[in-house]
């Protein structure tokens, strides 16, 4: 059986859904070991066991978070060697992908990012060129490194939970020498909304909002959705750049994408056309977004969105 290593960076007090998904995929590929950076609470250790982890590896150093990426990749390479891992799974965040990148060089291993499904033989499935193609890819090397998108499988605990042993692995001494150091960090105010990349529903606004994201935010909150925006809206400073969906922003693949006041130029489409269901609201009947919308409304979003929000609240009450 293959040995699979899952990297979980700073689990905190409970494992995120995306981490549980990685553990679920890992079990379908072979015997699972986990590398954890940061605190390891008893609860998290218990969950790792419940999801079938046979071993948990922790770094000898506590300061990996003070540096960008490189020492984490060095630690993970050391663990992969020790665990005899033939597949390494990481989350598909920007940092996860970069750790995967450096790990790939250290292990002479092929790296595949943006993975949405993995076959038992390690073949990975993904979508490329802004969702216009689906591809399968495979590493040609003895070790495979995969970064897997969130919301790809339902987390399932193991049928036979284990009690993983915890081992400490030395972080190579040279790992921090040529790494960028983080000198300050400020937490942003949490919006309370789901993370845009992982959200099941996204409500996005564009130029048609004319500076007022209120209707979009209210509809998002009624639906438990994340708020997205077109580049025109973020460039105008109406909403933070983090919200940008599109070719130069985030790619989202939710169950439902509601586009309000966005014409749907190709760069915007690129960020959202793999959504299961697309709804568009726009005054201009000629907007390209209507070519791909499952349900389109030609109308004034300042009328349509608040009416929909009220109706959802009424039905949920």
């Amino acid at each position, binding site marked *: 059986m293959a040995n699979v290593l899952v990297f979980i960076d700073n689990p905190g007090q409970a494992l995120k859904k995306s981490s549980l998904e990685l553990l679920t995929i890992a079990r379908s590929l072979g015997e699972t070991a986990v590398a954890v950076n940061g605190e390891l609470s008893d609860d998290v250790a218990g969950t790792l066991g419940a999801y079938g982890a046979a071993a948990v590896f922790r770094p000898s150093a506590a300061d990996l978070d003070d540096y960008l990426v490189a020492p984490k990749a060095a630690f993970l390479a050391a663990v992969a060697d020790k665990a005899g891992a033939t597949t390494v799974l990481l989350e598909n965040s920007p940092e996860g992908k970069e750790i995967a990148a450096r790990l790939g060089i250290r292990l002479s291993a092929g790296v595949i990012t943006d993975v949405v499904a993995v076959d038992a033989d390690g073949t990975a499935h993904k979508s490329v060129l802004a969702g216009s193609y689906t591809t*399968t890819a495979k590493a040609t090397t003895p070790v495979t490194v995969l970064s897997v998108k969130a919301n790809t499988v339902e987390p399932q605990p193991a049928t036979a939970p284990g009690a993983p042993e915890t081992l400490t692995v030395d972080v190579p001494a040279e790992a921090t020498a040529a790494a960028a150091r983080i000198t300050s960090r400020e937490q942003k105010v949490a919006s309370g909304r789901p993370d845009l990349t992982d959200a099941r529903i996204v409500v996005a606004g564009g130029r048609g909002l004319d500076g007022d994201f209120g209707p979009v935010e209210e509809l998002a909150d009624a639906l438990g959705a994340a708020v997205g925006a077109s580049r025109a809206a973020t460039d105008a400073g109406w909403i933070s750049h983090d919200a940008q969906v599109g070719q130069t922003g985030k790619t989202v693949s939710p169950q439902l994408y509601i586009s309000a006041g966005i014409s749907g130029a190709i760069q915007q489409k690129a960020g959202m056309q793999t959504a299961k269901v697309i709804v568009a609201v726009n005054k201009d009947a000629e907007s390209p977004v209507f070519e791909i919308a499952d349900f389109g409304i030609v109308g004034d979003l300042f009328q349509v969105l608040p009416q929909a929000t009220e109706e959802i609240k009424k039905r949920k009450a």
Partner: protein
Amino acid sequence: MKIVVLVKHVPDAQFDRHLSGEGHTTDRDESILSELDEYALEAALQLAEARGGAKAGNKVIALSMGPAGAVNAIKKSLQIGATEGVHLTDGALAGSDAAATSLALAAAVRHLGADTPVDLVLTGMASTDGETSLVPAQLAERLGLPQVTFASSLEVDGGRVTARRDADTHSETVEASLPAVVSVTDQINEPRYPNFKGIIAAKRKSITTLSLADIGVASSQVGHTGSWTRVTAAEERPPRTAGTIITDEGDAGIQLVDFLAAQKLL
């Protein structure tokens, strides 16, 4: 300062893009300088200008790896203001994945630093074709350099680079010693356009062509043979088609909720 900017010739996303051939590689007709690389080039030009520009010996080298057409990305970079261009081109490079690409680019950067060292390698945050963001980190790992990725601001002073980074949950300041590999986001600056003077000046600037032999890389280390991943199948997703389109007659919000309920999305 000697700055190498990686510039890539990518298919224009305004048109349909296609994969073809045995390796399912991207067709490169209708290609342009990757939009995200313009931010890296602008950042390089600003750093060079702040130090007295080309007259004071500052070099901004636009380096592109790719087939013959990639020279257009270099030419555009020269028109915008790069001081010289380098085109790494060799038939054996076709089909290189990120690992093989970073191997070739690392060798090219070492080659360019043979006489006077390279201080900074600047890149965009991702290519707009492969979109993996793997190459900057892999290049840094291969060169044994610090990487500073997704910089939304950048300062270089006294042999150190300081950058701001914005993640979803936090912002941070990072610092590294030079030389370093730095990737920049589209928030860092407003890229300039080539002007008439720049277009004329570009005609006098040199473009050096490098082959794999020039940089000491064997054909077997790159291309399909040297890549560590292989695309085994590619399927074009059927285009989305329009569904129901209605015009609001006062109850479109209600109809929208009915639609969501029918789709079990409430």
